[in-house]
Each structure stands twice: as C-alpha cells, then as structure tokens.
C-alpha cells in the first residue's frame, strides 16, 4: 500500500489550503467512540474516483460529514454500516443520483478520472453513462427483456444498426450471465423474470452502456441466497473490467466480494481498509462493534 501524501493529492486536485486529515497509523486500535476521523488508507495508487470532504444535507439535516475516499481502478469496494449511516447517500453522490432529490445539497469534491463531477461543465447525462448504477430492488422497465438492455445503447446512440444492437444486447446479457436463461424469451417483459434474474437483467442493462464504474446499492437484499450467490459470482467476474462500488448490509457479502471495505457510521466514514484487515483486525472500536454484531 503506497500511501499518497495529502499534499500531493491536493496538488493534483488543484486545490490548496484545505484542512488535512490526519491518518492514524496502522495497527493502532482506536477505542474512542467519539473519534470520528477516518481510520485507514483513504487513498489508493490508481484512483478511478476520488472524493474529498463530501458533505450531504437533506434540508437542514446533514446526512454525510466530511467524507474523503478514493476508489481504485478495477477494484470492488464495499460500503458497510448500520442503517441510515450514509453509505447509500454517498453511493448516490458518485453518479449524482442525489440530484433527483430536490432538498438535497452536496458540498465537497468528487473526481472521476480527471473530471470534477460536480463541475458545471460536466453533463450529468454523460456522467451517469460512465457511472452506472444497480438498485436495491430490481427495477426492470415495463418492456421486453431485449428492450430493457437495449435502452441505454439506444438513448446514447451507441449503435448504428440493429445488428450491432443485437450483438451488444447479447454480449451484455452474456456478461451478466443471463443469456442462457433468456435466450429464447427476449420478447417477454422484463418483469416476468424471477427476482434474481431481474437483478441480473438490471446489471446487464447497466453494463450495456459500457460504464467505467458500476454502483450497486444493496443489490442482493431483495433476493434469496441462491440468486445472491449468482450475483456475487457475477460481481467477481465483472471486476476484471469495471470498478464496482457495492453497498451492502451483509458483512459476509462484503467479505466475499470486495477487496476494500469502508465502514460508515452516522454520516461519518469511520474506517476504510483492505477487506481482510477490516474483518479480522478492525482498528476502530465502532467498526469492531459493528462487525462483531454488537449493534447495527
């Protein structure tokens, strides 16, 4: 883990004069519940996205406090934490889905490659094409399976003809591991599939646009264990080509699929680190309490 200095980070971001966060040294167990500074490495060598001091307010209520975190290329990072801790809120900041909530206000800095995604020059349409999202509840459109997957390519004008579109749709379904199940029923409505299939359809829909990052908001919470296993398998495969951010309630799932894990608590990013380390050797008392099941 080659830690990047804060100075370098700010320099790259072209910002200066920001207050810096002190990163506690590794191996130190922090027993202080009131200690709200992020423990662990927030930075990575090869960041796909980097977020700095992100605050989110819903009206007067602050839902996310000073969160800074890097997301590396082609890694799976899991956000865990008790309900209402801000992990989904943070996730939705990453492709500006929070824009659809009128009362929501965001400060801070989130960078996707070299672009500040909250910059005026950034088009939210383009951003979301680059940062796809899969939701908690499978939400296929009330259209055929084919049309569901073809939706993204169509609106973005990614293909020139029907043959290309067919190819793309089939490829996407294949990558989502769904092709065998739906090959012969492409015209049926997406809602006719089972829950797990629907969710994989939604993933296929997301990857059809060929995004750089895929955000997954508790993608398995509405599914049974078998379907969950399939999705997890899929995530593992997708990791080769995509950066995946997954919010999950299930610590086992986080442990299974992710390389890094971030633990959120009441709007704070408490601890972030290698998944193994978080689960075997949490450095913050809150993290430890959570993963040992003392609360949450």
């Amino acid at each position: 883990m080659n830690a990047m200095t804060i100075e370098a980070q700010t320099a790259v971001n072209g910002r200066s004069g920001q207050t810096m966060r002190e990163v506690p040294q590794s191996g130190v167990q922090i027993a202080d519940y009131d200690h709200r500074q992020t423990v662990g490495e927030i930075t990575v060598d090869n960041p796909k996205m980097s977020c700095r001091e992100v605050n989110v307010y819903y009206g007067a209520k602050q839902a996310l406090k000073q969160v800074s975190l890097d997301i590396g290329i082609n890694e799976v990072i899991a956000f865990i934490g008790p309900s209402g801790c801000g992990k989904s809120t943070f996730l939705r900041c990453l492709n500006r889905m929070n824009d659809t909530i009128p009362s929501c206000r965001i400060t801070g800095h989130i960078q996707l490659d070299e672009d500040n995604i909250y910059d005026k020059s950034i088009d939210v349409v383009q951003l979301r094409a680059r940062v796809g999202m899969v939701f908690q509840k499978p939400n296929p459109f009330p259209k055929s399976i084919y049309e569901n997957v073809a939706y993204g390519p169509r609106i973005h004008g990614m293909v020139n003809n029907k043959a290309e579109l067919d190819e793309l749709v089939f490829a996407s379904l294949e990558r989502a591991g769904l092709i065998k199940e739906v090959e012969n029923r492409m015209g049926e409505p997406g809602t006719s599939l089972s829950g797990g299939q629907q969710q994989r359809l939604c993933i296929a829909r997301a990857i059809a646009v060929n995004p750089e990052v895929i955000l997954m908001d508790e993608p398995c919470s509405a599914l049974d264990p078998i379907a969950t296993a399939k999705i997890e398998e899929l995530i593992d495969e997708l990791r080769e080509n995509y950066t995946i951010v997954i919010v999950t309630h299930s610590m086992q799932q986080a442990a299974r699929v992710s390389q890094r894990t971030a633990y959120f608590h009441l709007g704070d990013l408490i601890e972030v680190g290698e998944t193994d380390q978080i689960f075997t050797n949490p450095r913050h008392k809150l993290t430890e309490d959570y993963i040992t099941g003392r609360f949450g």
Partner: protein
Amino acid sequence: MNNKPVSPSTGSEPPSRDIKTIVNAGLKRRHAAERRFRWYGLIAISLGLAFVVLMFANIISKGYPAFWQTYIELPIVFDPAVIDPDGQHDPKALENADYAALVRTSLRQLFPQVEGRHNLRALYGLISSNAPFTLRAQILANPALIGTHQSVWVLASAPVDTFVKGNISRDLDEAHRPIKDQEITWIDQLTTDGRLKQRFNTILFNHGDSREPEQAGIRGALMGSLYTLLVTFLLSFPIGVATAVYLEEFAPKNPWTDLIEVNINNLAAVPSIVFGLLGLAVFINFFGLPRSAPLVGGLVLSLMTLPVIIIAGRAALTSVPPSIREAALGMGASKLQMVGHHVLPLAMPGMLTGSIIGMARALGESAPLLMIGMVAFIVDVPRSLFDPATVLPVQIYLWADLPERAFVERTSAAIMVLLGFMILMNGLAIILRKRFERRW
C-alpha cells in the same frame, strides 16, 4: 501517483468503445430535445391557464357593471288627494293607491317642457316600474309621510342604466338604439342636476328573479341552490361514506360486491342528463313529488354526487396503510372499532375533500334539472324544500335567453357569483387536502 484516465476497455473483452466520446457526440441533440420537450409542457400548461384567464376576463368584463345600478332622485309629493282621499290612513286603501301617479307627476314637474302622449310615455320610461312599489313601501312603513314633500331615490329603468354604463353608444343612429335622443337629453339633465347616481346593486343579491332587469336578483336562485345542496349533502355524504367504508373494509370479495363496484364506477361517468331522465321518471312520475322543488333537485343531484363521494372515500380509505389496521386488530379491537377509531378519522379529510368537490360539481349542474321542472320563472325566494325554486346555473341559463339587453351583464354577474362559490369550495377542498395531507 498518476491520475491519468484509465480506460476501462483496456481489457480484451468488452466492446471497445469509449463511452465518453459516444455520449458527447449525441449530447447537443439530446439536450435540445430535452429543452423542446420542456417547452411543449410549458406551452401546454400556459395554454390551459390562458383559457382560464380568457374565460374569466371575458365574464368579468361583461359582468362587473351589473354590480352597479343607476338610481334617479325624484322630488315626490305624497299628495293625500291621490293616495289617501278618505284621510283615514286605511292600510288597505294605502296599499291599493295609485303611486304611479305620484311618480308621473314628479317627472312632469322635473321636465315641464315635455308634452304629448308619446313623449310622456318615453319620459315615464326612464323610471323602473318598481318605483311605485318603493313609494308604497315607504308609505306603508310610515303613513305620517302622507302630505309631505320627499326626495326619493328610485330605480332607473334598465335601458337608462345600460346607457349610463356606456353599453349603448351615443354615436349610433337614433333609430337603432333603445334610448332615443330626447331621452339622452333628459338623462344628461338629470346627471347635471345630480339627480342620477350609480350605487352598489344590492337588488342583485337580495331579490328574486324578475322580468325587469333592474329588479332582477339572484337571491331566489341562491336559496334554491342552497336548499338543493343541503338535500344533496345530507343524503349523499352519509350514504357515500357508509358505502365507501363497507366496500373498502367489510365487503367480502364476491360477485355481488363486484357488481356494486362496477356500478359505482360506472355511475360516476354516466352523463348527468341521464340522471335527469331518472329523476323525471322516478321521483316526479312515480313518487309524485312536486315539480321544481329543491327536494327533487337535491335527490337527483345526490344520486349523481354519490359515486364521486364513494370513490373519493374509498381512495381515502385505501391510503390509510394496512399496518394501522393490523395494529388495531392486533390490539384486540373489533373490525368496527378498528374502522371507527382509526381508519375513518384518518380518512375523513380525504372524504371531506372528495365530498366538497362533488358538491361543487352539483352546484354547477344544470342539465338534469332541466328535466325536472327547475327551469321556471320564480320570483318568490323559496323558504322550504317544497317551494318551487330554481338554482343558480339554471337561472343563468334562463337569463341568457331573455331578450332584454341589460340581462347580459346580469347573466355574467350571476356567472361571477357562481364561479366565486365554485372557487371557494374548490379552494376549501385544496386547503383541506393540503392541511391533512399525509404521506405514508
């Protein structure tokens, strides 16, 4: 350390296209489409609102003069020789005396130069035919006035009123306007003498219908509407709420309740005129209820309003989450207690809102009432549910059909009053909805 963009498609597998460029290529076109679409929406809604404004402007510009009424001051001599020749102050004699003669005398005094039967008739025509009754009322209230000189403000006739308000142009050819040149000179003289004034038109609000525009009011129609709506509300609200509660909370799912449901939904969209046919056949011909009575009108309208209230009531009931019902039942409440203590109070604002909207619709309805004899000339203000009555929209329909020009502005004024009530009721419904709106 490097923050260079790393294309996700460095891998061998996914189709090698850079999503950023692809999206960028179409962005301009798509945003233009977005803006266009937004404009369509804005145009649509502006059109809708423009219609509202247009209608209101049209009606108000026609109707506002009706709130003013021209009066003429006459010096009246309550000549005992004319009205009380016996000197007995006998109320009966006073009632039947010739008060019109007093008015005529007064007018002749004001315009001594006018001569000839025809011209005199025109002169008398300046004053409303109601003037003698004004004098009679004064004398009957206070017989001591007999023999005195009084200045009395009496109603001007409708053509004079219309002319004074500028609705008849002076520039027109004399043959083509209801007010002739000599009448204009009289009016001008009265105006310069300060004997002609416009006052707020109280008659419009506290008189019944009349054939003379200047004496016509909407009190009778308003009371008729009130009685009709009273019946409508008393019948349709309790029955509507009871039905909604039954269907939503108690009814078993079976063909019978399905039938009721289909029925109600269908009745909500049955043309109102069909309800008129029903009222004529059932209430008047079969039950022998009196024609033109607010009772019958109310019955017909309540049948019409009932489905609206039931549907609104059911919507309000379904919006109460099942968890509340389960909570109540879980505490050991009976179904009725569950409904009465929890569900109904929570659904009541919604039900009231629906009822008010239904009532507003009933207030503006006229087609079914045409079928049950509520299209009638009724002067007396109805005092009970059985007195013949008409309602405001029908009054508008009737006035619009009259030849007198001055009724045009009164029709519009009546429309304004009706719209006022409509807006009031709808506003109330909106406030109710806002105030008690609950998101579950």
